[in-house]
């Protein structure tokens, strides 16, 4: 009913807002000239997102604009409603990429440093190939040689005044920028590039980690399905592999165990333990994206009902996450406590992690380099016996049994 009412009003005063026009395939036909009194920034962004939507997959700027439009529809077509739309549409996250072409090799490094000191988030130097010219190969031989002609690309935040920075940089270095181009880089672009690089990974014989859009190369193995996102824990890293290998080697003994994965990231270790037969798992992380990723990955592997994912404070003075969910069903001590984080937090969390482990239970500490093992072991030695470590590629997994 609202749709029809809205549809009617939309077609009279705001023709572009007619909801049926907002199917992704038709977003490209949105004409900016039909948007009365909309800020130029929003117009430009809408046109950009509309153009981007045909090439994009779902869950991208197109759906962002759709959801913004739905919010507008709910808010009503009024000045306030339009303000909500403008605000939401302008929050599509993006960065600005400025490519400075055809810079001499000698100037490339100073230019990069200068851009960084004037606000670039990162600067990338590549070879500048004029059309038709052959590639010039530069090898890493320690001489610091660079290409004769370079392209220097700076990434800036969306609010940065690049024109001013270019001016300053030219003045400071006394060089001239002859060609440059600036474009918007929606966050989705590099996130997708990152996701595309994931492949099924064999952790060891019989254990695979498979991205959710792939089929496992070995259907008979224990396959952990993952939806790779921005949380740590894709299964490729040595520390994840060390922990998974440890669990896999003892999978008969894990039956009915209660597990806590502190610093769970994507939840890969907690989910693995559950798939191997653990009774329950608690996964906590300081990053809310990780908490969500852990829940999603557990659901993906049909163990969502046995995983509790919690957010915890990055400070040790923060509340104990397990204490916060205390109940008669929730075990407060665990058979296995895994913490694959970093040396600093492992030292800070020593009292908390020690308390989590039942007498006779196992502690797994990782995310540390072999060179950092001694210090971590010293901290935990008092309460744990049989401490030993395994290493892979200079990373270590330190384990112990609670006394």
């Amino acid at each position, binding site marked *: 009913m609202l749709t029809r009412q809205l549809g009617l009003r939309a077609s009279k005063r705001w023709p572009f807002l007619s909801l049926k026009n907002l199917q992704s395939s038709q977003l490209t036909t949105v004409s900016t000239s039909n948007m009365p009194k909309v800020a130029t920034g929003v117009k430009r962004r809408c046109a950009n997102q509309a153009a981007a939507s045909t090439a994009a997959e779902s869950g991208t700027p197109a759906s962002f604009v759709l959801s913004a439009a739905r919010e507008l529809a709910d808010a009503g077509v009024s000045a306030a409603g339009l303000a909500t739309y403008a605000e939401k549409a302008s929050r599509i996250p993006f960065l600005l990429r400025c490519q400075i072409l055809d810079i001499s090799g000698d100037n490339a490094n100073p230019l990069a440093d200068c851009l*960084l*000191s004037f606000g670039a988030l990162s600067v990338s130097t*590549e070879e500048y190939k004029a059309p038709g010219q052959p590639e010039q190969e*530069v*090898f890493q031989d320690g001489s610091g040689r660079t290409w004769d002609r370079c392209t220097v690309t700076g990434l800036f935040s969306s609010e940065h005044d690049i024109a001013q920075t270019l001016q300053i940089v030219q003045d400071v270095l006394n060089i001239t920028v002859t060609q440059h181009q600036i474009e918007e880089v929606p966050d989705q*672009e590099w996130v997708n590039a990152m996701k595309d690089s994931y492949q099924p990974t064999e952790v060891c014989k019989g254990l695979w980690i498979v991205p959710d859009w792939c089929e496992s190369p070995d259907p008979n193995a224990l396959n952990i399905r993952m939806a790779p996102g921005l949380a740590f824990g894709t299964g490729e890293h040595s520390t994840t592999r060390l922990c998974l290998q440890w669990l896999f080697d003892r999978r008969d003994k894990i039956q009915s165990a209660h597990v806590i994965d502190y610093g769970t990231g994507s939840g890969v270790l907690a989910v693995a333990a559950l798939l191997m037969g653990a009774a329950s798992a608690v996964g906590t992380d300081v990053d809310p994206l990780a908490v969500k990723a852990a829940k999603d990955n557990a659901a993906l592997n049909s163990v969502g009902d046995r995983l509790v994912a919690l957010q915890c404070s990055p400070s040790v003075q923060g509340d104990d996450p397990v204490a916060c969910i205390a109940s008669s069903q929730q075990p407060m001590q665990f058979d296995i406590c895994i913490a694959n984080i970093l040396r600093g937090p492992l030292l800070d969390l020593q009292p908390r992690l020690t308390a989590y482990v039942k007498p006779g239970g196992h502690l797994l500490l990782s*995310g540390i380099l072999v060179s950092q093992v001694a210090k971590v072991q010293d901290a935990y030695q008092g309460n744990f016996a049989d401490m030993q470590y395994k290493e892979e590629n200079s*990373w270590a997994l330190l384990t112990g049994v609670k006394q």
Partner: protein
Amino acid sequence: MASKAKAVTATIKLVINAGQAKPAPPVGPALGQAGLNIMSFCKDFNAKTADKKPEIPVPVVITAYSDKTFTYVMKTPPVTYFIKQAANIKSGSQRPGHAVAAEISVKNIFDIAQQKQQDVPDMSIDAICRSVAGTCKSMGVKVVSA
């Protein structure tokens, strides 16, 4: 060493706070563009800077090769960071050249130059001092002799 030298595809420079590399910007887009394994870099960088004071800015230079592998080098924090530490200020002057944010001494300049020398071993300490003094000027930090 390596049987076949690898061709370099790009050199990426950025500054990350110690122990705080995450896939989010600036690391994500910068490395993602070159097709590098972002997670692996973040984990490696965080572990290697685990011993440093957290929040100290660490400039990183990553060399990306044609086979999508990479190596990286960490450098000393930017001169601006050292100056802010020495002058005990959070940021430079809003109007450098007109408004003075703070003062530091010539001895501070020399100490900073010594720290930075590890990054530019070919430069004379004199030249580095002058460069540091120049940065002070651009931040609106005055240099006094005491």
